[in-house]
């Protein structure tokens, strides 16, 4: 099956000349339908940059980012925006929920922005909340929820509708280990049951271990990986 996310030679440089920060240097990463990939690496190694480029929130300096066959680099801004509303779900570390909207309104928002009729959008949103296990909280405001519950709303918003790619930046950051585990279970199920491709950034090895494949970034370069798709010989040889 062809990859949902296909990143080739991704380079992202901030600034120019002496001051240039090379956040990513020639990263290749391909994620198949149903596959969950975890990205680990020290602080500043480029994990968030990789995710924002994959999600069309940031522009690469060089390289290609293909989502479902569309190159985000050459696509028009409107094209990228549409792809983001329809095909890409993004879970931000700080959740990014709108406090003035209830849970179900937050989740329905990307669909409504995309022109789905209000009642239909709400129906889908309710289903997504149901799926992440907080259907009964649909009419609560984010401020009246726990961190774990808000996180579930953010995930529901990222999976609502027909998303193909789910990107999550430290989605378990502030959660205790049981709740964090439940979030992983959720991401895992999305990939297993709906053939979504997932990329998860995490500092926690126990959470990364839920992924099919774990890749490591250091100084903007992928330095190794673990998982069934890794070629054992290659692991023993180290990178390159």
């Amino acid at each position, binding site marked *: 099956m062809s990859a949902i996310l296909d990143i080739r030679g991704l380079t992202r440089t901030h600034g120019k000349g002496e001051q240039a920060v090379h956040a990513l240097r020639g990263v290749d990463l391909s994620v198949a339908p149903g596959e969950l990939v975890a990205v680990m690496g*020290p602080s500043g190694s480029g994990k968030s940059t990789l995710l924002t480029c994959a999600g069309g929130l940031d522009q690469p300096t060089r390289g290609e980012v293909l989502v479902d066959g569309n190159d985000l680099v050459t696509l028009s801004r409107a094209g990228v925006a549409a792809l983001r509303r329809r095909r890409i779900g993004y879970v931000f570390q700080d959740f990014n929920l709108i406090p003035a909207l209830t849970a179900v309104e937050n989740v329905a928002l990307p669909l409504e922005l995309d022109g789905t009729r209000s009642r239909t959008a709400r129906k889908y949103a309710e289903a997504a909340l149901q799926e992440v296990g907080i259907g009964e909280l649909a009419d609560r405001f984010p401020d009246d929820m726990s961190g774990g519950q808000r996180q579930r709303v953010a995930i529901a918003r990222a999976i609502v509708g027909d998303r193909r790619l789910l990107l999550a930046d430290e989605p378990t950051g502030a959660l205790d280990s049981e709740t964090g585990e439940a979030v992983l279970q959720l991401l895992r199920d999305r990939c297993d049951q709906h053939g979504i491709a997932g990329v998860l950034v995490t500092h926690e*090895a126990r959470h990364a271990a839920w*992924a099919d494949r774990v890749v490591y970034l250091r100084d903007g370069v992928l330095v*190794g990986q673990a*998982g069934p798709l890794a070629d054992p010989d290659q692991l023993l040889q180290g990178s390159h």
Partner: protein
Amino acid sequence: MSIKHGLLALLREEPKYGYQLRGEFEAATGATWPLNIGQVYTTLTRLERDGLVRAASTEADGRSTYEITEAGRTELDSWFQTPVTRESRPRDELAIKLALALAVPGVDVSAVVQRQRSATMQSLQELTRLKRGDRDGEISWRLVLESMIFAAEAEIRWLDHCESILLRHRGRPAKQPQVHEADDTTEVTR
């Protein structure tokens, strides 16, 4: 067992006396693994028997230096390149391996750490898969699994921590600067 590989590592650059090996081994491992001179000679004798080292020169007082053989180099390289397995693990072996990788010039410490991290992550993934496949299994089995998961996780964190210490340490000038002939034929150098 690591004493054997530790001595091979220290012989990688040049022939040495037994007492020298003992001192350098202790220096490289921060004296966390004290050796007595008897252990050193017993180990050297076994290494010699296995063709991994040979006596190089003998002084008037009967002491001799030892040098590593080609077979010894091959053995050493594969030790550095092979992650320590979770089954047969004295945690110390890993610490010693990292300390020696740092002490011996020409070994890519980050690569050694990364291979270990990937190997430990792989077992963590396997344990997690077992756990997922057994959501309503027996509580005792569940707890055993969790304990293995936490142990693997701790090791990965410890590796992250070691790596940052090692990298900082590497930035400093070596304690005992050694002039040695470049030896680019070995596999460990990359």
